[in-house]
């Protein structure tokens, strides 16, 4: 297929790089950035990997000995699996919500907004310039027990008279959805913008109902953006702890909170490091599994 495309007159191929001439060029281009990442991300991560295998009975004042304590891993799983599950549960729930909210938004901006397209797009991006903390604190104000929103919900009996929004799983999921929604919308928008509306007309012409046209045409064609957006949403959301901390209660704490506490409060570095690596591994596993299901080869 690709071979045909190469020589087909319809699609002139990109010129093949000239061997020899550019052999060193890619490395030169990569060198500064890759070196930066290797030194300031790779090396610290390697040290952290080592720390996750330190003797858990060490301490700050005596230091930690390297005992290749692989047992740290099962230990933290046993101690913190509920938080792991909760992290992925909340992030997954937030993802579903974000998809329900973000897909129509991206679709509307890409296909329906006409000359308002840019303005709407700016409205999606601009909140990111206001501090994360300021925004999350604003949510605290909005969801507050004595705020207008809760009052309204109580009046229409959607909430019990003593019900609340703040400090519930709902608030945490809402916060996660809110904070990471732009990451989902933007790649999705980029994908949907390329969608030719004539394809949908063709589908309806071929007896597809709007729902079928969406499922058979729009959705598959927006897949690259959907995959990228889903990952960019899910990855940071599952590692987040600020939302759980500010909008939740201890019963909503996620694995990020546990890592935070391991490093900062309990000073249990082997555990903290092991938890961090487990989180990364879990995220990678989810990413692999998801990509397999999504049936796409492209990640980002």
């Amino acid at each position, binding site marked *: 297929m690709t071979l045909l495309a190469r020589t087909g007159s319809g699609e002139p191929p990109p010129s093949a790089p000239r061997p020899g001439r550019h052999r060193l060029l890619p490395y030169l281009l990569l060198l500064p950035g890759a070196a930066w990442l290797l030194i300031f991300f*790779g090396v610290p991560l390697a040290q952290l990997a080592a720390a996750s295998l330190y003797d858990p009975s060490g301490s700050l004042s005596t230091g930690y000995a390297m005992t290749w304590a692989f047992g740290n891993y099962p230990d933290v799983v046993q101690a913190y699996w509920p938080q792991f599950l909760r992290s992925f549960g909340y992030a997954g729930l937030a993802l579903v919500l974000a998809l329900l909210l973000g897909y129509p938004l991206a679709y509307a901006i890409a296909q329906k907004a006409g000359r308002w397209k840019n303005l709407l797009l700016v409205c999606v991006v601009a909140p990111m310039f206001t501090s994360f903390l300021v925004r999350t604190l604003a949510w605290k104000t909005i969801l507050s027990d004595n705020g207008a929103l809760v009052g309204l919900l109580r009046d229409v009996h959607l909430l019990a008279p003593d019900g609340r929004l703040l400090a519930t799983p709902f608030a945490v999921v809402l916060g996660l959805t809110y904070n990471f929604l732009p990451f989902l919308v933007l790649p999705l928008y980029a994908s949907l913008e390329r969608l030719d509306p004539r394809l949908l007309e063709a589908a309806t012409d071929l007896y597809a109902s709007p729902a079928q046209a969406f499922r058979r045409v729009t959705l598959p064609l927006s897949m690259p953006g959907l995959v990228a957006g889903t990952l960019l949403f899910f990855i940071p959301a599952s590692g987040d702890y600020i939302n759980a901390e500010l909008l939740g209660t201890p019963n909503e704490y996620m694995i990020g909170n546990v890592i935070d506490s391991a490093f900062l409060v309990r000073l249990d570095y082997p555990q903290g490091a092991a938890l961090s690596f487990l989180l990364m591994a879990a995220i990678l596993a989810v990413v692999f599994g998801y990509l397999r299901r999504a049936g796409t080869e492209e990640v980002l």
Partner: protein
Amino acid sequence: MRTPLRPLSRRGLLTGTLGSAALLTMGGSLAGCGTNGAQQTEAGCVSEDLSGTEKKLAFANWPQYMDVDEKDESKRPSLDEFITKTGIQVTYTEDINDNNEFFGKVQNQLAACQSTDRDIIVLTDWMAARMIRLGWIQKLDPANIPNVQANLLPSLLNRPFDTENRISIPWQSGLAGLAYNGNVTKELRTVDELLTRPDLKGKVTALSEMRDTMGLLLGSNGHDPANFTAAQFDDALNKLKKAVDSGQIRKFTGNDYAPDLAKGDIAACIGWSGDVIQLSGEDEKVRFVAPDSGVMLYSDNMMVPNKATHKSNAEALINYYYEPAVAAKLAAYVNYICPVKGAQAEMEKIDPELAANPLIFPDEALLSKSKVFMALDEKQEREYEGKFQQVIGA
């Protein structure tokens, strides 16, 4: 769909991940010999004092823990006066938000006997104790801080982690007790009420500082927070856990409970006297309660960390803030317990009402109820902190 290249494919990700794992293992084996202890000794980590030649001082403190001019919030009257008087240029930063977080920021330097670029840091008792235990703090020269020797409140003298009063000098003190908002709930008297009263369900917060929350709970069980056993600790912790599991306690907080308490989103909490006094100033229905089972007395202490190069300048500042008139000026703004004897008399001149406030100048009755949490060694600290963290969700 045109895919002119495959930026990162699943297969690529897999091989790449395996490759990186190999790289990590290599890097890891470099760090494979473990880490050295963080413990320092006076002989092993010697700090130089350049105060003679450098009239400078870097002072790191908590936010809003220093008096500011009401008309011009960029001016700090008491600090400016010190600068004028001594000619020592003070760089004042408010970058301590949390004991643990700050410890995380400076521990690497101090463990390696490197400078933290700060000459004075202000930390709470237990954290001060930990740092002193690790040998990270310089001893002050008693001759340079005569005001401290003369004016430090007797109840704060000779604390277990600083028996000579020359390592960590209280900046401000405070009480951890109960607080409630009378607009949304009725009066509250005991810790047990806080943890069990049904009308408070989901409207209660406690402090994430283990010593404050657990100290009050130990007291409520009739045990002494200054001297308890592991079993007693577990008892108190179980009590806390029940309150968490039942949903009575909504959250464990730092200072951020205060706006919620003022608003009535939370009805009652374990809180700190200074915050509650400020809230009472706005709304007298917000009240601080010192339960009969005891309140926790804590201090935030000035310390000169290792490798800080302006110890004498720091001593000059510490001594200055132990002048009663200066201390009164500061206390009038920050509303915490003033650790300086004689400040109350000075306060009469500034604001007689504050001078009469037992939460700033505590009377004997209150002081007799107040306890200081037991000093923990590293092992105990880790064990108790670990258990506590598990209950509070992290």
